[in-house]
């Protein structure tokens, strides 16, 4: 007689090991399994809400893949690409480069939990999570590869994470901290609980809504499909957190949540904030980045905190203040240093500025003068005086330029440790560094490396060092282009 799923699933998912040749601590060393190290009894009530068998997983995923591939076949016609807004295409390039191989790193992280998670159900979910992340790597690589025919810089879908490009180094620093270099417990909290339950909804579902209105239906469908997997393996975080809190690790749990909230915020304002409000065509903008953050991320996050009786991060007021400014400040930096990017950027036109001011009533007063000045420089002298020639200070934690919060209010600060002075964009970044200095202290930002002579200071050579073959691969103003000769070195005797 064939057993029904409900008869065996609960038993099967909780089948676990009783080690006899080694002790439990050797089987699950704390260095990889995580802290606090608790005996298995503490973990035995680890339970996920949404349960699936491997057979169900394979069937569901096969259907999802068939749907994605079907849409791809239907929509991969040359003229469809030509009809996409040129700035939107840059958003896809930005997203692809920043995300594709992060997903692959996520697979490594899930596999770490698949081996070193402290409960069998956790390990099973993580095994399926690893398969999810492999899928999430393959999809953007596939779509990015299709798009190579139209824009060679979609090569950065794969290439980005193998370069020293500064935005990518910031992403790698974050994701190494969040999961690649984290033990199983920390990564469950940082990746599954904070990042996936909180932020990735914004990147995938909000972007999907905008992609629909930008008429990029293939991208929309792939994002939505990816997010359905995300919701499943993101649930790993909740029971891990619950176990930590039940076993006296409230302080550590609060720290991990605070840290990863701030670090995720930094990534999202840079990638999603600028993408939504400077690369998405006006008619496709369903809401502002701040509105999305408030509705999709903050509300959910606060609910999660309440569920676990955790406090809002200590820097909450600063975060709220930054919602109105930080991504706009970052866009100015992206524009000034656009030749160091693998995607193009925009200077907002009059209609876009009006929209921005409508959503952020101080935008015109704070940022208007900078953009007007750039327009004037284009008209008066051409491209050269719209580019930036000196280096920006880079934060030694998040690796982003020290331009927060906004013009007229800069929160950069420093710290001296063992004879070296470190620069940070904000108090939270400095605080995170101080909490885990041994982990972060040896790292050098791009600026540190230039000043130490380990990376070139000359822009034409820095492009190469970052993996950008000028001028073809370097970023430019979407509407105005880039003079091709501009990045050629001047010949010397």
């Amino acid at each position, binding site marked *: 007689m064939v057993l029904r799923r409900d008869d065996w699933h609960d038993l099967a998912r909780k089948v676990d090991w009783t080690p006899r040749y080694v002790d439990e601590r050797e089987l699950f060393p704390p260095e990889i399994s995580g802290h606090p190290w608790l005996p298995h009894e503490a973990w035995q009530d680890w339970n996920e809400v949404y349960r699936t068998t491997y057979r169900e997983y394979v069937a569901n995923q096969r259907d999802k893949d068939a749907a994605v591939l079907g849409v791809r076949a239907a929509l991969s016609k040359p003229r469809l690409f030509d009809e996409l807004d040129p700035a939107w295409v840059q958003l896809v390039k930005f997203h692809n480069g920043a995300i594709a191989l992060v997903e692959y790193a996520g697979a490594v992280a899930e596999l770490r939990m698949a081996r070193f998670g402290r409960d069998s159900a956790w390990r099973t979910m993580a095994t399926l999570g690893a398969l999810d992340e492999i899928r999430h790597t393959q999809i953007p690589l596939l779509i990015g590869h299709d798009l190579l025919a139209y824009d060679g810089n979609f090569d950065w879908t794969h290439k980005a994470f193998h370069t020293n490009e500064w935005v990518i180094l910031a992403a790698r620093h974050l994701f190494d901290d969040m999961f690649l270099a984290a033990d199983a417990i920390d990564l469950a909290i940082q990746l599954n609980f904070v990042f996936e339950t909180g932020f990735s909804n914004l990147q995938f579902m909000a972007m999907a809504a905008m992609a629909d209105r930008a008429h990029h239906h293939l991208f929309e469908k792939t994002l939505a499909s990816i997010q359905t997997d995300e919701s499943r393996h993101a649930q790993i975080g909740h029971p891990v957190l619950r176990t930590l809190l039940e076993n006296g690790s409230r302080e550590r749990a609060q720290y991990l949540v605070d840290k990863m909230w701030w670090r995720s915020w930094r990534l999202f304002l840079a990638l999603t904030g600028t993408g939504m409000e400077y690369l998405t065509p006006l008619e496709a903008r369903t809401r502002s980045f701040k509105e999305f953050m408030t509705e999709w991320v903050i509300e959910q996050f606060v609910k999660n905190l309440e569920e676990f009786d955790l406090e809002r991060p200590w820097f909450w007021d600063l975060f709220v203040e930054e919602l109105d400014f930080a991504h706009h400040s970052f866009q100015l930096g992206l524009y000034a240093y656009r030749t160091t990017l693998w995607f193009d950027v925009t200077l907002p036109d009059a209609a876009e500025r009006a929209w921005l001011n409508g959503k952020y009533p101080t935008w015109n007063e704070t940022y208007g003068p900078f953009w007007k000045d750039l327009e004037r420089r284009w008209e008066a002298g051409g491209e050269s005086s719209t580019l930036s020639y000196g280096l920006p200070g880079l934060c030694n934690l998040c690796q982003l330029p020290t331009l927060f919060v906004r013009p007229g209010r800069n929160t*950069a600060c420093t710290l001296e440790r063992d004879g070296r002075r470190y620069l940070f964009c904000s108090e939270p970044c400095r605080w995170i560094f101080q909490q885990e200095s041994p982990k972060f202290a040896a790292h050098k930002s791009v*600026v540190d490396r230039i000043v130490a002579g380990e990376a070139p200071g000359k822009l034409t050579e820095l492009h190469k060092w970052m993996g950008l073959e000028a001028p073809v691969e370097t970023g430019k103003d979407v509407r105005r282009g880039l003079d091709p000769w501009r990045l050629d070195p001047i010949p010397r005797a």
Partner: protein
Amino acid sequence: MRVYLFGYASDDYLMRVVVTPDNRTVAHLASQLVAWGTAPERNGSLTVRNEAGEILDPTSTIAQAGLGYGEIFTVERG
């Protein structure tokens, strides 16, 4: 000795990396940051502060003013 410093001008949006011999004056340092910034053509007074917010004597050298490797200075433009 050359030092690298991080400078923020009040009319700028970004903190910039400035390298300079530390026996140049604080006034020179301020002018240097302004020249690298977004509005070098704007005239007016320049008040230099260290990270603690203390005003630095424009005639003192960078070293005498206590600015060392990797420190922050701000320039308030009048």
